[in-house]
């Protein structure tokens, strides 16, 4: 994995999660601009998947590739699901749903980094 890209994605998705939770605390649903932010995050995750795939085919990466590839694939699913759930609920709870998805992204990336560096289970 590319360290700085993973770090950037963690920081950005945490920032988005805070943004959405603040929005929820203000009793507001998510708007187009929040969906746009999630789309930008998703593009970043896509770049991460592509770079990781290139590194993997180049012989880099963890020994047991199965789990890592599972997380890699899963990392692309989280935000679209969160955006779908969040956009469909026009209340502060829709913002929470989108925030949950954004909070999941750093967890997934941290797990992938653990696996990549061989310290993971």
């Amino acid at each position, binding site marked *: 994995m590319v360290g700085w890209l993973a770090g950037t994605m963690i920081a950005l998705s945490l920032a988005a999660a805070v943004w959405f939770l603040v929005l929820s605390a203000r009793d507001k649903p998510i708007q187009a601009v929040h969906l746009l932010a999630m789309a930008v995050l998703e593009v970043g995750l896509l770049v991460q998947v592509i770079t990781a795939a290139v590194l993997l085919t180049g012989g880099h990466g963890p020994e*047991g590739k199965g789990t890592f590839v599972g997380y890699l694939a899963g990392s692309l699913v989280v935000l679209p699901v969160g955006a779908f759930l969040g956009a469909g609920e026009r209340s502060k709870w829709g913002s929470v749903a989108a925030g949950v998805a954004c909070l999941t992204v750093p967890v997934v990336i941290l797990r992938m980094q653990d696996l990549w560096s061989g310290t993971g289970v």
Partner: protein
Amino acid sequence: MSELSSGPGRALVAVYAVFTLSAGARSGVQLATGFDHAPVAYLLSAVAALIYLLATFALWTSRRRIALAAVGVELAGVLGIGLYSVLDPGSFPEPTVWSQFGAGYGYIPLILPVLGLWWLRRGAKEPANG
């Protein structure tokens, strides 16, 4: 929109969806790469994934009885497996989502069914409008 998946239920569906995804992916990888390595733990992972899937589906489609059953099994599972894994750690060479009461997942697996039951009970008393 169905009542169980609206309001606070929408946030609950989001968390259940995340756990369906993570438990499902983990279980899929475990079953595909080495079922013989730890069949009991891997089967439990698969069961947990199915329970999360069922709970997500039932909340989303507002099937209260199925949701109650799934969340009930989930609570029994996390308490039972959690206790078992603490008392007899040797029997769980590989972690499942419910081992150590879900410590590997920030104890969310323990909190989630409690929130789920609260939501299902609250929804039964005062049906949400919409």
